[in-house]
């Protein structure tokens, strides 16, 4: 008889993992099946659902469809000792690490801004030991952690990470497969304490629609214990029922619905508005020094009371109209002039 054995164990810290029975019982006690009006302010959502030491995950990808309104609010409320999923976390994690909110990260892709270069602030924090990388993983493996989490199973098998240092620093394990007898990676499930996801539209109960690629937000939203949805627009519930196939996140996963038009700024909201490159450059420039980080946070976060006030600071409706136009011309329409 074939004996299944653990061949190798990754030495990275296992974060965000729950025993499926423990998670089921938490879900039973805490997640209501009653449609309730979950609309609230960003301030209320963050103070109610994000606690010091929580494991958090932010939706979207890189500078795309990120709930910046909540990121700024976490900084404003000076939440600390958060552990973050570095699942192609770019601008969000850079700010949270720079502001001292996040000090531990499991990394698939972080500390870079894709084509715009490396993240100054969060890299500095890692290189000086202020922020610790607790484990490494790949993008596929990270979203499969959420897939296993939403399925209520402790791990999912896959064929990535094998043979590398990424595996050695991960929290995965390698066994010989009971069906093929070949080595196989077991990726542990992940049920984050809180996920924050920005969507195109959502009704007051939390039934949410996303236009464009879902990235890994389907799995992440379904796996998270608490879910804060920020939305460009709150739409009437009857509209959800007219096109139920458009719902990516049903209400029973959602804990807070926060209406924040332009809530992803300076990131891109696909088909809505383009990256605000001026603002991203301003951050990349200022974040070269600790003083610059302070200046940025003071100007755009601490001295600001609402997202509307922030939007006025970055150039107001005129700037936003330009970003909308850019998404429809250089972005989505991608026409070469």
């Amino acid at each position, binding site marked *: 008889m074939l004996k299944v054995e653990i061949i190798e164990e990754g030495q990275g810290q296992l974060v965000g993992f729950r025993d499926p029975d423990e998670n089921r019982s938490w879900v039973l006690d805490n997640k209501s099946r009653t449609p309730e009006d979950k609309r609230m302010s960003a301030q209320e959502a963050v103070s109610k659902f994000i606690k010091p030491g929580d494991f958090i995950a932010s939706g979207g990808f890189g500078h795309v469809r990120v709930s910046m309104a909540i990121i700024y609010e976490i900084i404003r409320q000076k939440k600390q000792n958060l552990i973050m999923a570095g699942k192609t976390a770019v601008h969000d994690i850079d700010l949270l690490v720079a502001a001292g909110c996040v000090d531990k990260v499991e990394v698939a892709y972080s500390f870079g801004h894709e084509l715009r270069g490396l993240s100054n602030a969060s890299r500095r924090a890692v290189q000086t030991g202020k922020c610790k990388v607790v484990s490494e993983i*790949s993008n596929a493996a990270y979203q499969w952690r959420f897939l296993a989490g939403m399925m209520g199973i402790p791990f999912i098998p896959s064929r990535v990470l094998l043979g590398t240092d990424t595996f050695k620093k991960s929290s995965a394990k390698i066994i010989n497969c009971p069906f093929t007898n070949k080595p196989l990676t077991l990726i542990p499930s992940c049920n984050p304490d809180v996920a924050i996801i920005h969507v195109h539209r959502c009704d007051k109960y939390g039934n949410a629609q996303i236009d464009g690629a879902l990235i890994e937000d389907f*799995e992440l939203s379904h796996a998270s214990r608490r879910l804060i949805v920020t939305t460009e627009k709150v739409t009437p519930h009857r509209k959800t029922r007219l096109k139920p196939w458009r719902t990516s996140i049903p209400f029973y996963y959602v804990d807070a619905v926060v209406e924040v038009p332009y809530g992803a700024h300076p990131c891109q909201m696909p088909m809505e508005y383009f990256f605000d490159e001026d603002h991203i450059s301003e951050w990349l420039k200022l974040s070269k020094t600790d003083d610059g980080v302070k200046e940025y946070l003071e100007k755009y976060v601490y001295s600001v009371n609402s997202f509307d006030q922030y939007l006025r600071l970055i150039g107001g409706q005129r700037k936003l109209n330009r970003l909308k136009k850019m998404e429809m011309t250089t972005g989505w329409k*991608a026409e070469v002039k």
Partner: protein
Amino acid sequence: MMPKKTVNYNQVELMASVAAKMLENDKSVLVGTGLPVLATMLAQRTNAPNILIMYEAGGIGSQASVVPVSVGESRTFYHGIAASSMHDVMSALQGGFVDYGFLGAAQIDMYGNINTTVIGDYDIPKVRLPGSGGGNDAGSLCFKTIILMKQDTKRFVKKLDFMTTPGYLTGPGAREKVGLPQNTGPYRVISQLGVYGFDNNTKKMMLLSTHPNVSIEEIKENCSFELTIPVNVETSKEPSDQELKILRQIDPMKLVIGK
């Protein structure tokens, strides 16, 4: 050393043009951020009009006319066939639907293993790099991986500071032994100096062609490990005026090409 001829293209344009010619029509490719996007979009406009472009965040079959700034943004599915999810795309990789993986790297060794995680000591890094991203996934699961990177002695190294993504690991049979899918692995490495493949018997990196005006000496001087150098080494083709025109059209802001 040969005197340098003045040319009407830069290293990025040359690398993109060489890389584009490697992609065959009617094949699928998982494209990483930066130079791989530029090369793939050039191929789509020249030798491989039916190339099936996949981006890790879910964009499939994009026909964008300008390079995406991010591999998750809306241009990655502009006029595409699907805007799906990372689970969908990564499952296609694992299921055997993806022919090419197109990656960048900070360090590479003689077996094509690559590092994009850290330079220096892991715990007290000299430079913390972004990590695997989709790199490990593409390098593990695509049939043929093409790596585009800058070459010098600090990048073409004897020993990686960290092995993020598997190449041929320690040599023939090693990938299969650790459980990676069969018939996968690095196929080509393209630097600003030349093109490399891997010797079938040893799985060690082998020079295939030098770029115009680059000597074999220069290739060796910029590599810390021993390269296999066959008797016949070709010279890479220069980008044509038409290719240069296309490259500058698809990257009008010179985001990848550089200013």
